[in-house]
């Protein structure tokens, strides 16, 4: 089937609702309206209001009640309308979803898949464009996934919904409708915690994920260099083996993400490489990322988000060393 990321996610949710009668979707405007991005379009009509629920407007309770359902052996799939509104649920995610298994030495588990749109580039209002993956990857206990293609989105989401741990499934809004792909109609899984070599190359290694994968591919094509491009797919747990292999292959590493540069995922990847592969590198690691400030209003967005030119500049700098 030829689908964009919205279609792929909708199809994955359809498969999960069909195969698991303890799976439910809940969130704001996800039922009749099909979600503000139409990701859940048609699912309430197909599965009923008891399985695809429009909830009252309260993010902490959407996640908190989902945790309660998970404690009873259900698999809730809550949607938070935008990642910028999820801070209200941060306590439930970090204090409870992330801790419940360790707190009870696995007597309880939280099978829950939280979906939320992230990242910018679509000229949205304030609070609709943030990339908060590092906030959720840092405390431990949560799985954090961010797909970059329709194919990955479907396979990763199905895997997430068949996992007995809490997963944060971050959907880049810019990629929802950016391109289509031919993907299998049946269920398939992509493993959690495994990165994907998007392109093989020998001049340099670029580690990225989410919105930046296509930007990196465009920059590499534009510069006509041979780059090993690694798409993390999962932020936590990090695929350290794949990162090390990709870094050692070329000895020159660039990390690209849209989120703020300081204290971000790039910092973690760079630190891990410094610990384990410093002597395999022949140039300082370069990070290309959003500046270390809150995401701006849409008018300033183009000055904020890393673009092809910024990645090209990074490639030039790295190859000149």
């Amino acid at each position, binding site marked *: 089937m030829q689908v964009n990321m919205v279609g792929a996610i909708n199809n994955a949710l359809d498969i999960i609702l069909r195969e698991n009668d303890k799976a439910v979707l809940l969130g704001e405007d996800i039922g009749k309206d099909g979600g503000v991005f139409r990701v859940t379009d048609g699912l309430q009509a197909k599965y009923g209001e008891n399985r695809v629920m429009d909830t009252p407007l309260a993010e*902490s309770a959407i996640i908190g009640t989902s945790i309660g359902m998970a404690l009873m052996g259900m698999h809730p799939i809550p949607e938070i309308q935008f990642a910028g509104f999820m801070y209200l649920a941060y306590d439930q995610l970090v204090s409870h979803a992330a801790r419940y298994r360790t707190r009870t030495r696995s007597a309880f588990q939280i099978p829950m898949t939280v979906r939320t749109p992230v990242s910018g580039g679509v000229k949205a209002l304030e609070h609709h464009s943030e990339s908060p993956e590092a906030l959720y990857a840092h405390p431990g206990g949560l799985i954090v996934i961010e797909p970059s293609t329709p194919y990955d989105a479907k396979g990763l989401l199905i895997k997430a919904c068949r996992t007995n741990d809490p997963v944060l499934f971050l959907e880049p809004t810019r990629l929802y409708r950016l391109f289509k792909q031919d993907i299998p109609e049946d269920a398939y899984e992509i493993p959690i915690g495994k990165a994907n070599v998007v392109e093989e190359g020998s001049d340099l290694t670029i580690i990225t994920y989410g919105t930046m994968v296509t930007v990196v591919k465009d920059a590499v094509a534009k510069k006509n260099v041979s780059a090993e491009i690694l798409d993390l797919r999962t932020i936590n747990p990090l695929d350290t083996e794949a990162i090390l292999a990709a870094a050692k292959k070329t000895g020159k590493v660039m990390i690209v993400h849209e989120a703020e540069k300081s204290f971000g995922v790039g910092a973690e990847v760079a630190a891990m490489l410094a610990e384990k592969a410093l002597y395999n590198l022949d140039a300082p690691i370069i990070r290309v990322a959003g500046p270390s400030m809150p995401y701006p209003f849409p008018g300033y967005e183009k000055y904020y988000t890393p673009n092809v030119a910024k990645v090209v500049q990074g490639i030039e700098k790295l190859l000149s060393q």
Partner: protein
Amino acid sequence: MPIEEVYNCSVKRLQILDENGNLDEALFPEGLSGDSLVEMYKYMLLARAVDAKALSLQRQGRLATYAPLIGEEATHIGTAYAMRKQDIFIPAFRQHGVQIVRGLPLDLFFLYWRGFEDGAKLPASLNQTPVIVPVGTQLPHGAGIAFALKYLKKDAAAIVYIGDGGTSEGDFYEALNFAGVWKAPLVCIIENNQWAISVPRSAQTAAETLAQKAIAAGINCIQVDGNDVLAVYKATRDAIQNSKDGPMVIECVTYRMSMHTTSDDPEKYRPDAEVEKWEKKDPIDRIRKYLTKNGLWNDSLEQKTKDEQAKFIDQAVEKAEQFKPDPKTMFENVYGTITQTLEEELSDAMSANFWQESEDD
């Protein structure tokens, strides 16, 4: 045109057994036998004895920080005794009396308060969730559990606890609102012990009662004398019976006779006169008076029970103190499958023999 009244409401208060042990027979919970009353009383004694033991162990450095329950036994035992086996109990952090009635192995209780997660590894048969520390955050879990019970077509209710301070939290309002919309079988027990650490009930909210907070969410509510085990029992039993039709909030008005936890000193922030006033309303004294007056209890039974309970408690403490932590379990229970990073951190810690050294400190 005239201004119309679009809504009006009131909150009822229930008391069955007053502080002198006098009973309102018309309100006596139907079907509750003398044996059951004695059993409830024994549980109240046990809760108080466990509490005293825990406090003493903490003062000897044998427990970590501990949150005492003394004064709140009627609220705990009355609610717990009304629950059925299949009902799901969702505590905050002070409901030790409820846990005791619900059959929590007492060594797990002491293990938890010694500071080991292993004490929260609860057998599934208990139908309870573990102690939750962040105030009020267990309320949405309760609403979600209640939703699940309804969704899974179980004949059971979810019973969730919160303190007076907790009713100021957003999660409290959000959870009641969700439960109301879902008509979920949730019973919310507000254990109003008058103090949120150092902040009195009067400074917590301008609302006349805490029960009335349910009304805004379209939920039924009642206030009960939380030191009257019969009133607490009756209100909870009724709420559970009616939970098929939707949620209910029960405010139990009780008093925290001791500190919030072993880390604070109530003499610093509250007057002795207030404590003395509440001593006269002691939940255990009044039921003992009633039982004695009716020939159901006497001093020799009291002594025998206390001796048996002391032995039972000591055995649990001994078992809990024999426990040896295995630091590997910290790493093995973060995710269903251990991650590359955790595996490496585990192996680093083991090869450095770092745990061995920590134990020698």
